[in-house]
């Protein structure tokens, strides 16, 4: 009991299946607080599903998820979520500020509308991600990198302790990549825990201090220097990827 309270995220025996096809099989994951963890694995390894299962967005066939020792439902307010950029319709009729303020909807609760305070928080967050010039921009006019930064700003205003991000580096420009990395480091300094689904194996050692290798089963997880080894990578990717760790 004591031990589980000191873990930011604790996943035990998690199995998720779509129809009869297992997507995650008996996965365990312990994430200590204040860690930047990347989840890597081939396509179809269940990375997104793992994040969604932690957030209660997909129902597991078996297993348990705890955030700081309690269920996600109890800890919702301290968890922030950045979905895949491609999961929404960017032609939706709204502007940047409006999307960022959605990050406050959970704290606002039912029916109450965002006001001056929410607007200020959103402006601050947009400044942090270098998007303050785009406050009133229609979201369909944003580049991919700008869309990603809007999503990050929305997560920022959630002011969470634990963040789950689904492919934030996917298809973004260099400016955005730097902005995300700066933000991640800031999160770490503040003791926040961040779990990132990541595709680019080259940058794992530079950006993250923990890594989880996933391919339906958990292959390994732990500090990058111990875990991110050629053997583990070979097991994860089935020897299809020739790769140097450093």
């Amino acid at each position, binding site marked *: 009991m004591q031990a589980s309270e000191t873990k930011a995220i604790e996943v035990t025996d998690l199995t998720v299946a779509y129809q009869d096809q297992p997507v995650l099989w008996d996965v365990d994951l312990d994430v200590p607080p204040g860690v930047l963890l990347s989840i890597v694995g081939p396509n179809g390894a269940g990375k997104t599903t793992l994040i969604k299962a932690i957030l209660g*967005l997909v129902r597991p066939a078996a297993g348990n998820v705890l955030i700081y020792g309690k269920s996600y439902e109890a800890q919702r307010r301290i968890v922030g979520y950045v979905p895949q950029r491609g999961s*929404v319709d960017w032609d939706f*009729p*709204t502007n940047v500020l409006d999307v960022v303020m*959605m990050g406050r909807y959970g704290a606002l609760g039912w029916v109450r509308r965002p006001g001056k305070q929410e607007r200020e928080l959103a402006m601050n967050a947009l400044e942090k991600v270098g998007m303050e010039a785009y406050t009133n921009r229609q979201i369909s006019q944003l580049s991919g990198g700008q869309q990603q930064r809007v999503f990050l700003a929305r997560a920022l205003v959630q002011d969470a302790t634990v963040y789950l991000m689904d492919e934030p580096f996917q298809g973004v420009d260099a400016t955005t990549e730097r902005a995300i990395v700066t933000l991640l480091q800031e999160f770490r300094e503040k003791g926040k825990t961040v779990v990132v689904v990541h595709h680019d194996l080259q940058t794992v050692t530079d950006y993250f201090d923990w890594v989880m290798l996933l391919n339906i089963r958990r292959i390994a997880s732990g500090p990058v220097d111990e875990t991110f080894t050629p053997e583990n990578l070979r097991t994860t990717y089935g020897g299809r990827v020739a790769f140097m760790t450093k």
Partner: protein
Amino acid sequence: MENLSILTHLDYTLMIVAIGAALLGAVSGTLGTYAVLRRQSLLGDAISHAALPGIAIAFLLTGSKTPLILVIGAAIAGWLGTLLILSIIRLTRIKYDSALGIVLSTFFGFGLVLHTLIQRTGNANQAGLDTFLFGQAATILESDVLTIGILGGIAIVIMLVFWKELKVLVFDEGFAASLGFPIRALDILLTSLLVIAIVLGLQAVGAVLMSAMLVAPAVAARQWTNKLSVMMFLAACFGALAGVSGTIISSSASRIPTGPTIVLCATVVVGFSIAFAPNRGLLWDWFRHQRNKHNLKMTASNLLKQPQRGSE
């Protein structure tokens, strides 16, 4: 004297009908906005077709042609049809479009069978049920206007109360769920509001074309604005405009069904918006393209001149 009283009577009837059609257009335009943004345009079609057997059953059970009773029957059937579609998608491997097709045709077929049976019985009361197929706005009475106003008003108020929740649901369902909003309940709420808008319109527009009243005003409105609230307001205005003009045109000539006329009026608004709206319109696109081409040519010719100047 007699002529005069007929005239005022006609005007009064037309006014009631026009008010009813305007309210109807406004309600379906407003609620149709979310249907269009969620890419559920065809769901409206399925609901309106699924409502048909409800009207027949309500008539068979009560023997009454009171619009409110028939509307309640339509609402129950439409709602059941929608729940069936959502359950089919969730519980089976059948995809969304197939589920829509199955439910739409089954319910509609069942409705047609029941209508034929009712007609065979030779019940003197049966005349008028046909209006629910193609719509006959001329049958709108004061009491119908009241029904449309009250039920439509309630639907819009509910939508405004849950504005923030419905907006985040439609824009980013996964994120809304992670915030703790019960997305399945909100989904059912939004669909139920859609059902209300549809069954209110059945009498005037008819089951066959009702979905156009949801889709057309919203599609036209999207052309003119990038703001959800403005889009919804414009859709309401366009819907009302189509409703009124369609009603007036169809009642000026005898035996023109109102539904198709209203839909044609809405189509004119859509066509105009697609062609002429700033930023998203076709004409605007053409101008922008021409301007870009011109600018590009200028830049290119300047670039070509520069090295020549340098070599002199």
